[in-house]
């Protein structure tokens, strides 16, 4: 953020925080194509664009397509069995025209852990940048089978979006770690290098110490940013929860509906002229049930993952803000130390001059 002033209200420019003066504001791109040719949104405003069927958007699309020089997709999840464990491997396909890459096409197999590694490397090397979040690890309490098809598909989608975001980032896309991730057939040797565990520990410890001491004064713009991030995080979390609640309620409604329709059919069995209309109603109820089921599924498969992603984004942002605070705290601490040393030095000199024999 060298000398570039960030406006106090930046709600419209959230994703600009890490821009460099001379690079394009990447958030202007509203959507990208994923492997199936579907529009995938990168920002809140483009969530809207997904549903707009303007020609204007298709033009933007084409223009954009011409400027991508690094195109990544994640697909083809396959079960991989070893003696110790079973896990899923995803195929990562890269097409590029960049000179840093030796070939123009790469295909590698990666597992979720590999993605975690990549992201932690990126965050470490670029602590001031916002690195798009990864889908969460498998959590037992969500009662979803680890190798359930829906879960795998949702995760694959999220991993795909992750890499696409990174590839579009003006700084992160040139990271050497990314290149290694995309090109090397075997990652194990690379994973062992790097600062790793201890430095991460140090970070946390410093963070704690600083939070105890408290910041002297945070520049206003960051305070506003912090507040906004907090609020946004709350709101997006609420939305996520509300949506999940709606899905639950709709499922229960659906269960009752499935019992309701057949009562008409049963009744029709003992009627004469009335049988036809009754059966008609029964089939309508069944139909409604199917539609509701579809809609509920759509909510789970489309809306929830997107909301979830932004929940994670908000968390990432908070992390970045914390790091900034930590850095400021460290800076202040060091400054204080310097000032007190200087004071010490001066008083020592004064004392010495007092006690030194006059020439």
């Amino acid at each position, binding site marked *: 953020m060298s000398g570039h002033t960030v406006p106090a209200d930046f*709600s*419209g420019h959230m994703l600009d925080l890490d821009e460099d003066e001379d690079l394009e504001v990447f958030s202007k791109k509203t959507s990208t194509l994923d492997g199936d040719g579907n529009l995938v949104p990168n920002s*809140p405003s483009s969530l809207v664009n997904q549903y707009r069927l303007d020609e204007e958007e298709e033009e933007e699309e084409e223009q954009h397509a011409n400027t991508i020089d690094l195109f990544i997709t994640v697909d083809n999840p396959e079960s991989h069995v070893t003696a110790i464990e079973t896990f899923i491997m995803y195929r990562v396909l890269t097409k590029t025209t960049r000179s840093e890459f030796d070939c123009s096409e790469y295909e590698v197999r990666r597992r979720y852990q590999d993605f975690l590694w990549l992201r932690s490397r990126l965050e470490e090397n670029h602590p001031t940048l916002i690195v798009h979040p990864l889908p969460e690890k498998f959590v037992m309490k969500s009662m979803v089978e680890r190798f359930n098809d829906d879960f795998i598909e949702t995760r694959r989608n999220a991993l795909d979006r992750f890499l696409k975001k990174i590839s579009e980032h003006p700084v992160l896309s040139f990271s050497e770690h990314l290149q290694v991730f995309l090109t090397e057939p075997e990652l194990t040797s690379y994973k062992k290098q790097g600062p790793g565990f201890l430095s991460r520990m140090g970070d946390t410890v410093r963070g704690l110490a600083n939070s105890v001491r408290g910041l002297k004064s945070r520049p206003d713009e960051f305070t506003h940013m912090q507040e906004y991030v907090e609020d946004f995080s709350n*709101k997006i979390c609420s939305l996520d929860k509300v949506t999940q609640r709606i899905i639950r*309620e709709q499922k*229960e*409604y659906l269960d009752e509906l499935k019992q309701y329709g057949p009562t*008409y059919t049963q009744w029709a069995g*003992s009627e004469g002229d009335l049988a036809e209309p009754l059966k008609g*109603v029964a089939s309508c109820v069944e139909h409604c049930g199917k539609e509701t089921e579809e809609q509920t599924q759509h909510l789970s498969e489309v809306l929830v993952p997107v909301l979830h992603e932004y929940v994670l984004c908000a968390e990432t942002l908070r992390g970045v803000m914390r790091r900034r605070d930590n850095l400021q705290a460290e800076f202040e601490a060091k400054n204080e130390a310097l000032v007190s040393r200087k004071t010490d030095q001066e008083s020592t000199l004064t004392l010495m001059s007092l006690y030194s024999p006059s020439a």
Partner: protein
Amino acid sequence: MAEDGEEELVATDDDSEKQGRLNHAIVDQGCTLLRRMEICVAEAEKRNGKNAVNMQEMFTVYLIETRPMDAVAEGRNLSPDSLWRRYSEFELLRSYLVVTYPYIVVPPLPEKRAEFVWHKLSADNMDPDFVERRRVGLENFLLRVACHPVLSNDKILYHFLTEERGWKEVVYETGFQAKAESRLKALSATFRVRNTDKRFVDMKHYSDELQSHTSQLLRARARVADRLYGVYKVHGNYGRVFSEWSAIEREMGDGLQSAGHHMDAFAASIDDILEEEEHYADQLKEYLFYAEALRAVCRKHELTQFELEMASQDLISKKQQREELATGIVRTFSFKGMTNKLFGQEAPEQREARLKLLEEMIAEGEETVKEKTVECEEHVERAWVDMQRFEEQKDKDLREALINYAVMQISMCKKGIQVWGNAKDCFLKM
């Protein structure tokens, strides 16, 4: 004049649309009482009074208004005659009708207590919504009775509608309660009767099915309503979140705020929707209760048939006794036969006396059998006619009810589409 009457009837009718159509249909069929007077249950009021055990209680009374039809037709704006009746009086009227016309499927009253409630609906009899629905149900009852080809001519009914005081005494004076069949007698007849008319057996079976199916349907519907209510109300949370969120956003603020309002409107809309659905449920409930009335007619047949069989049986045995006495041949075991063997034959004079008595009893018995046969046949004839009428009415009414239900559902979906369309516009404009 009939046409004028029809128009007048529809125009001056009560709020419920269903009533309007019912009235129209009723007059088409050419009913008697309803042609002569216009009837409606206009209001409900709470009263305090002493009940049967002399304790203070609160109860609801309903205002019955009547107007002579010719006055209405001539456009004379007569103020209606009116009187107040409580639910228990309606019950008394119905009991009287059921006993006096056992071959008629007597229209049922609206439920005494709220059943098939789901969580938002109150089960309280004093709840204003319940009272309102009951008012409609009572009016419906009166209209059905007043337009029935047989029931509408009843004097007690007329009295009920026109004389507030002393009606109860008049009803009791008819002594109808004495004619009421005991439960035990009816049950016994059901088990022991041999030759019931097949049509009645089928009808009884049908009434069982109707009752079971409608009650299952009503229960399932109540559960669905409960769940749907939940779904709609949770969307209100969207409204709240959007509203709060709009406060912290600059560009998205307005869009979020408006969308929030639409979500609130969506959540609120379910109350009216489900209220309307209750009317549909009430229409089904009427036929749930009709099933009981139908079954009562079938039971009466079983009873009359049984009594006929008993009387015939009695007559046969008496004739047998006479034969034995006359010829001296004892074919069946009898006490007299035994004592004859033990103590010797009786004197001829005694035999004469006994024979004479038997002859009298046989004559009586033959009369009884004739009566019972007539009673049974009449019941079968009249009941069959009314059951046919009932079936036609049922098919027509339920068909209409189902159509209305479908219309309701369509309207609900259209409203939903509108709300979500509006919300989408808000999002698009953000």
